[in-house]
């Protein structure tokens, strides 16, 4: 969900882009962090812990906690909270420590 109206801030209309999460098409704004587009689309689980596969969500937003590491365009362990969203990005929930294929 997005904030529609705010008493202090103005959220200027930005350019909408399409991207996919595990093949499913989603929409977000160009240049916002990938993770923020995912949360806005109602996605809460961004990764799974390596050993017990417990769900992990957005936590620190400054690229320091590793809860949002995902595979983006085939590259694993991308910090999606500090990586800008671009048109056509392929985002995947990665398994384990991540691999390149």
């Amino acid at each position: 969900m997005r904030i529609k109206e705010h008493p202090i801030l103005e959220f200027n209309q930005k350019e909408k882009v399409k991207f996919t999460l595990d093949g499913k098409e989603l929409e977000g704004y160009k240049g916002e962090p990938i993770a923020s587009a995912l949360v806005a689309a109602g996605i809460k689980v961004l990764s799974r812990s390596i050993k017990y596969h417990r769900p992990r969500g957005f936590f620190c937003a400054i690229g320091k906690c590793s809860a949002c590491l995902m595979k983006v365009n085939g590259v694993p362990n991308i910090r999606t909270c500090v990586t800008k969203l671009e048109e056509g990005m392929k985002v995947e929930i990665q398994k384990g420590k991540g691999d390149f294929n």
Partner: protein
Amino acid sequence: MLERTGIPTDDDLEKVIPDKKRLVQGPVVIIECFQKIPCDPCAISCKLGAIKPFRDINDLPQVDFDKCTGCGICISSCPGLAIFVIDMNYLDEKSLIKLPHEILPLPEKGEDVYALDRAGSMLGKVKVIKVLKIKNKTNIISIEVPKSMVMKVRSIKVEDKNNER
């Protein structure tokens, strides 16, 4: 008490409320700021010198109620939203409260809104007399309240008619 709940007690309030004589003379400021913190915009905002100049940035605001005209300019300068203006004898039966408002929706003039006390409890519906939009976005809302409620009401809740958010 204030430190545990965020709600000032009667003892706290006694220190900042002008005496009866001044209250009936017309609009006057009430500054509900009880803790020494490094903050001074209120004192600088009052051009009439009613809020005494701070010797130290951590001073508590001290008001010279005789100099205060209740103009309300200081209200939107305060980052703590701790400043109110009341006009006890606005009408025979009613008092007027000017309070800061930074939440949406913004009420309209003439609209009935819920009056909230310092704990956020609803005290009933009251009428909005004026909506003053301020550039720094701390808008000032004037509401008309029964005299018995003038020392209780400190916030409002506006119904979200279009359920915009």
